[in-house]
């Protein structure tokens, strides 16, 4: 039995005429907390979309627990970037977490006792049980993230992907969120978070994946942030991708 949860083998993703991910390879162990860092347009969201099967992989593959992503992903919970959610809806934390147990078949719109227990348990896990009947759109950025985290826990996901989870979240709330995520990791979850915040990464995460259209580095945060990697991630490197074109994927 492999101990790796997510394995990316030379994954390439093209969107329209643009090559977004090029030859990305990494292997993520179970029960780990991973930061995915990189510049805007570096492919963090695209990588999450590829892992969840939302967009097709042009070349290479991604396997989740030994199974190709194209063959189902019920094990993954995804919290998209904040602006992709419709905060016009005046929903309580209970209602949002209840959405995590939505299936394809119809249901009567009243939550059963069992489901109510699950919702309460998941909100308790993220430390927001006392806010169960409060409106989520009126909560702080950090609390919103925790409610959305509870939603994917209710879904039963073991792999949690959070896109820009710290965006617009103050430092105190970031720490609370990290504490919750650490507890979830200890209870057996594998968690990946896309973030722009590279401060305190070593304190917060087990490993870091540096992504700028290709995988610049992956491993212990204390070791991977070399000058070369930082320059590759955020520096001026116009010539870096001169061989990376649609269909060629940098083999030359």
């Amino acid at each position: 039995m492999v101990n790796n949860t997510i394995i990316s083998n030379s994954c390439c993703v093209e969107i329209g005429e643009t090559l977004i991910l090029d030859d990305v390879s990494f292997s993520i162990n179970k029960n780990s907390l991973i930061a995915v860092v990189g510049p805007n347009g570096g492919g963090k969201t695209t990588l999450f979309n590829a892992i969840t099967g939302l967009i097709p992989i042009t070349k290479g593959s991604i396997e989740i627990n030994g199974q190709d992503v194209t063959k189902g992903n019920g094990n993954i919970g995804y919290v998209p970037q904040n602006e992709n959610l419709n905060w016009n809806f005046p929903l309580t934390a209970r209602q949002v977490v209840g959405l995590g147990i939505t299936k394809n078949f119809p249901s009567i719109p009243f939550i059963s006792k069992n489901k109510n227990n699950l919702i309460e348990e998941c909100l308790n896990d993220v430390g927001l049980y006392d806010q169960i009947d409060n409106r989520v759109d009126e909560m702080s950025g950090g609390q919103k993230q925790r409610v959305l985290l509870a939603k994917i826990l209710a879904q039963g996901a073991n792999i949690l992907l959070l896109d820009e989870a710290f965006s617009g979240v103050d430092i105190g709330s970031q720490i609370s969120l990290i504490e919750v995520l650490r507890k979830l990791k200890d209870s057996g979850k594998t968690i990946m978070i896309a973030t722009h915040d590279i401060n305190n990464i070593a304190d917060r995460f087990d490993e870091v994946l540096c992504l700028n259209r290709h995988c610049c580095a992956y491993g212990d945060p204390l070791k991977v942030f070399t000058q070369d990697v930082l320059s590759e991630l955020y520096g001026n490197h116009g010539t870096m991708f001169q061989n990376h074109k649609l269909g060629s994927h940098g083999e030359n």
Partner: protein
Amino acid sequence: MFETLLEPFSYSFMIRSFLISIFVGISLPMIGSFVINRNLGFMGDAIAHASLPVLVIGAVLGASVFLSAIPAAIIIAVTLSYIISRSTVGEDTAIGIVFSTFFAFGIILLKRYNLATTLNIEDILFGQILGVSRGDVISTIILSLITISTVLIFYKQILYLSFDPIGAQVTGLKTKLYDNLFLVVLSLAVIGALQSVGIILVLSMLITPAAAAKLIIKNFQNAILVSSIFGILASISGLYLSFYLNLPSGPAMALSSSAIFVICWLFRRSVRLI
């Protein structure tokens, strides 16, 4: 007082009108609660206008509004959904182009086939609930029941894809299927209400009661319920105004709906319910 309230019921046309009002008053604001939060008001307006050519073709073929409504709803919903998903000019622009094209085509068909006896343009534009037949009542009730039951049965699926479309898709929810179902039901509800409030005023029942409820109700589920109550209140009070003041029924219902909104807006800070 009671006599004033009961007098309209001595006329069978008023009983038919009240029946239609109640069902339209429930179904349109119910789906309207999703429409206002998804910013689809323009889409609702477009559906109403775009239904005209299909209703005219139905009338030419001798079909009732009910029989025309179902294919009309599917054609319009699927066309709009397809064009929006493929649009490179922006959602609103695409809806605007489809809206005006369909409506213009409908007006030309209406004139070309000289349907003044079966489809009166003014009734279609502004509604004529007082002139509905027994068949119209039955068809409106059926269309409204389809809308109400679909929203109730698929409430969670529609809510999930409206709130978090990406998260919903990742869980394996067939978001495209449910989104198209939502648009078809929205079209059915809008077309079913054309006889009461007409193409131009349909938004007054689709979005105004839902927007009023959102001002004073904290919780989405309760806001749906209250918006339907506001819808019934608006349509029935509009009918009374129409009966006693000899006003056109569609605009009277629309103004009642606006009055409810203004009252809720005035009390929005002092009243924040459940």
